[in-house]
């Protein structure tokens, strides 16, 4: 990657005795759509507030375009933020909310009018320019907040749970709008979210955070298929954790209570205790033939697939997705197959 737009190096932050960030290092490229994903309290919002300048790190540096931002107040940073609560100014109308940042930059009236109208059009708000904020729906407020943050042409836009307050249907629509606007404006977007689907759908790269640390930074596919830790595997999507001992002789496999499961050993030594994460939809389900024998305990119809809970040993139940059209009943015996590369071997927890 060429020199990153945003470079975060070993940033730590404590609130009293609570560690919010611990040695966080990240790079975000120009024009990239980047997601900070994690459960509440993982430090993702604190990291975003450090980038915006509302908090200052106890240690480490944050640099934008190679310029260290420490000591630069929020109003001097070429970074804008879209607040979770939107934080729209209730005493100003839609037009003036969007124009707020431009007026602070001292642009000419004509330039401000042109830019605000452009953004109103981009966010489909053209007829709402003179509305008061209190007269807008939730979705409209969300768009005003986005337009207001984009108006001063920031180098980077920070979005704090931008879709969190919208209902499910609107959220999906807005995801596409957000992606399109990001592509069109060529601005780096950094989104904070606790919703794994949102992160997978929107981001070019995702940083999964937990308890103030970054667990993994990778593209959505890699995060999903090759989670680096048990936490990432469990937080993003559904998965089975299969415990076993690694056998590197010949085709590598994990020796488990219910049989051999092929896997890619990575750099783990022979005989190591390891955990394999396997997504339910990567497990093949058949009525007979080769494979590990199990009994259907329970099933949930999901439309495209049917999720089965299959008992493979007295104390082990795996979840496997059977494709549409196959019918299974409780108590049926099935064969589970694990294609090579179906799972990701996880390093032992620290």
């Amino acid at each position, binding site marked *: 990657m060429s020199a990153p737009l945003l470079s975060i190096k070993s940033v730590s932050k404590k609130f009293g005795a609570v560690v919010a960030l611990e040695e966080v290092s990240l790079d975000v490229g120009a024009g990239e759509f980047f997601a900070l994903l994690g459960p509440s309290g993982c430090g993702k919002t604190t990291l975003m507030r450090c980038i915006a300048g509302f908090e200052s790190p106890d240690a480490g540096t944050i640099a934008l375009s190679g310029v260290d931002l420490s000591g630069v107040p929020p*109003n001097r940073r070429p970074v804008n933020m879209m607040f979770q*609560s939107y*934080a*729209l100014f209730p*005493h100003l109308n839609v037009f003036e909310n969007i124009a707020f*940042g431009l007026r*602070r930059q001292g642009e000419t009236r004509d330039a401000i009018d042109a830019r605000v109208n452009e953004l109103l059009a981009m966010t489909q708000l053209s007829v709402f320019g003179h509305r*008061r904020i209190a007269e807008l729906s939730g979705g409209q407020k969300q768009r005003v907040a986005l337009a207001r943050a984009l108006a001063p042409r920031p180098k980077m836009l920070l979005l704090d749970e931008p879709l969190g307050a919208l209902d499910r249907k609107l959220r999906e629509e807005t995801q596409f709008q957000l992606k399109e606007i990001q592509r069109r404006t060529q601005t780096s977007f950094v989104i904070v979210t606790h919703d794994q689907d949102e992160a997978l759908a929107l981001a070019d790269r995702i940083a999964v955070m937990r308890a103030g640390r970054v667990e993994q930074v990778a593209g959505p596919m890699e995060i999903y298929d090759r989670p680096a830790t048990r936490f990432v595997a469990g937080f993003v999507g559904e998965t089975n954790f299969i415990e076993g001992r690694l056998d590197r002789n010949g085709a590598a496999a994990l020796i488990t209570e219910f049989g051999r499961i092929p896997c890619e050993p990575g750099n783990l030594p022979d005989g190591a205790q390891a955990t394999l994460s396997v997504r339910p939809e990567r497990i093949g389900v058949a009525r007979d033939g080769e494979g590990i024998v199990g009994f259907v305990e329970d099933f949930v119809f999901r439309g495209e697939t049917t999720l089965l809970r299959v008992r493979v040993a007295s104390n082990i139940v795996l979840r496997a997705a059977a494709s549409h059209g196959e019918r299974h009943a409780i108590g049926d015996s099935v064969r589970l197959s694990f294609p090579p590369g179906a799972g990701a071997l996880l390093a032992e927890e620290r």
Partner: protein
Amino acid sequence: MSARRKLSLGERLVIAAPYLWIGAFFLAPMLLIAKISVSQSVLARPPYRPIFEPSDSLAAIWAKAQTFTFDAYRALVSDTLYLESYLYSLTIAAVSTLITLIIAYPFALAMARAPERLRPLLIGLAAAPFWTSFLIRVYAWIALLKDEGLINNALMALGLITAPLQMFATTGAVVVGIVYSYLPFMLLPLYAVLERQDPSLREAAADLGASPAQVFLRVTLPLSREGVVAGALLVFIPAVGEFVIPDLLGGSETLMIGRTLWNDFFSNHDWPAASAAAIVLVAVLMIPLLLWERARLADEGGA
């Protein structure tokens, strides 16, 4: 509105209670004063005519009503003393309100931004003067301001002045007294609106490039307008009619309307004149208030 539900007797009573209260203790006295203001001043007890008796027949009431006169109001216009008193009162009240606002705003802001667990204590401190009698607090200012008072003695002892400054019995002393006495009435409504303000609005403004001064002028101040107006009214209205403070701290030249009223009532025994002055004062205060309220409602409803 959809069809009205019939209200039960209990509900009617609950709704009626505040109206009865206002009617009995505000409207009825106002009507009495209005009636006295159009009566004739006489040397008697009470010093005005006519007086209605419960035994009066309708004809008698009508005959007595014929004697109503607007002489007292004419006197208000013809005697420049009243006009001067009104203007003087309004000016003093306006200046005091402005100073109160300027002093109270930073305090309210500091209180609203203080750590949450400190705030009840700060509110308690702001309200602490109310634990002492208002009169005693105003008297205390005499001790501070008079020629051989604390301030003059201190300044002389320090050698900063050689002769005592004339502070007591001046217009300035009246303003100081009003500002001091009414400060909590400005402080508390300001604190209430500032404390409610969403801090993310200030962050958003800063994020969009507003300097701290711009954040204050563009966001904090406009969003505290309701508190400023409420505080200003709570100070201005009683300050216009203030009697005790100008009487105790003012000099002979501080002729505020409250004092003029007092003189008419107790010294001149001209109840109609005093009543007319009071009615005009209420009108002067109420009419701008009603206009402002109507403009505000139109502003909110229409847009």
